[in-house]
């Protein structure tokens, strides 16, 4: 059992993640011991990241909220079966991603977008929008909205596995190893999917790319 746990820990990418995984495991043990309220700590800790992944996969804020809640419920129901072979966050991500993929496959024909607003305080996004609007002299807010729509459209044109990989890598900043673990595939597959998805997005978003 210890060997399995050690192997699970080696899959965690960085030392920060290692510390995070250890603290998560403590909380999980408390929940498993019957302290149900401790689960709320995990919810508060991961709700933003899980929501972000699901939202970027669906491009629909209502669906994202529902699916995130479902992921937490499922993890709560199955927490007694969680043995720590992977980190809690990987396990939770896997539940969320799988629920989202099932949802997307079920509603393949129904594509309805509802976007979150771009956070104006975010430094990187402000820089990017400024760089793009300086040449054209367009209104930044209008341009930001248009760019957001184009980005989401381009994302939705990707297949579900490619979209998942690009979301987890570029938006959620997970490592190849973590993505492979979440998606239950090899690191090589993750890399090739990532490469292909980037090529497609590059072609779609060519008018917004400045070299």
């Amino acid at each position, binding site marked *: 059992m210890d060997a399995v746990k050690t192997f699970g820990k080696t899959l965690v990418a960085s030392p920060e993640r290692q510390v995070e995984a250890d603290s998560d495991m403590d909380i999980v043990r408390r929940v498993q011991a019957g302290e149900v309220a401790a689960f709320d700590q995990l*919810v508060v800790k991961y*709700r*933003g990241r899980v*929501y*972000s992944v699901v*939202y*970027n996969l669906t491009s629909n*804020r209502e669906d994202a*909220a529902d699916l*995130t*809640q*479902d992921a*937490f*419920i499922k993890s*709560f*129901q199955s927490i007694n*079966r969680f043995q720590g072979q992977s980190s809690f966050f990987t396990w939770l991500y896997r539940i969320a991603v799988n629920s989202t993929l099932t949802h997307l496959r079920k509603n393949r024909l129904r594509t309805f977008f509802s*976007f*979150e*607003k*771009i*956070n*104006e*305080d*975010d*430094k*990187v*996004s*402000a*820089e*990017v*929008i*400024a*760089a*793009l609007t*300086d040449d054209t002299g367009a209104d*930044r*807010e209008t341009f*930001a909205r248009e*760019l*957001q729509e184009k*980005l989401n459209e381009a*994302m939705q044109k990707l297949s579900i596995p490619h979209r998942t990989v*690009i979301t987890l890598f*570029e*938006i959620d900043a997970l490592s190849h190893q973590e993505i492979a673990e979440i998606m239950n595939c090899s690191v090589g597959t993750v890399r090739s999917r990532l490469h292909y998805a*980037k090529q497609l*997005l*590059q072609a779609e*978003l060519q008018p*917004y*790319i*400045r*070299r």
Partner: protein
Amino acid sequence: MKESPRKTTVSLEDLLRLKRAEQPPVEFWDQFEQGLRTKRLAAIVEPRPWWAPFIRSAARLSRYQLPVGATAVLAITFLTVREYRTADLIQVYEPAGIEATAPASMAAVAKGSVTAADAAGARSVASVPMVLAEMPVRPVLSAEPRSEQASRASAMVGSVSHLAPVPSELSMATYIAENLAKNKPELDRVLDRPVEPLSQVNMPGESRRSRLLEGTAWLASAGSASDSSLRTSEQATRHLNERRLTESDVISRLDVGGDHLGVKF
């Protein structure tokens, strides 16, 4: 938007980083919490379906897909080979033209009930139609002496074997002879008079159709006969008229008198 330092290049990664900035407002999380709490309560209260444990155990088994699958394939292969061998044992016979020897299974069944005394009589009984080889297998449990049975069989079949006497063949011959005697009339009927089954089938409207066709044939024949007779009479009349014409022409057109000669046109 806030003023930010000038950035000249924009890569795909920069564009995708914009997606990170798509965050819900703070009040959204209050609603989220409320919804989650309600759902969690519902999940606790709601009874789990009876098949949930099975799904869980199936999910556990899915880890061992390869060994379970390999075992299943091996088991199926073993059973198939075994069945195939059994079938082979049942169907073993010598396909020498129309003649056939006893199947091995029959031999196995009757093996215990054969004595050496059977050999002489049953030796001659070896040539039987293939059809007989498919008859149901029953051990011979007759009170009649086996030598008598064998001689009767040889008398009925009447052909002499060139094969070596094997106990199984002997008992088989006895058995065949018995069955042959019992089913001889039926066998004769089946083997001697092969009748095409479809030729025996009468269509429902067949009799009516044949009746109608008979009537039509009679009418047709009658009509053709009258036609031909009519044609013959016409020809005869025409022929007679021509003759009469020429004759009358000779007679009436030439009016020959003593003092005159008249020609009619």
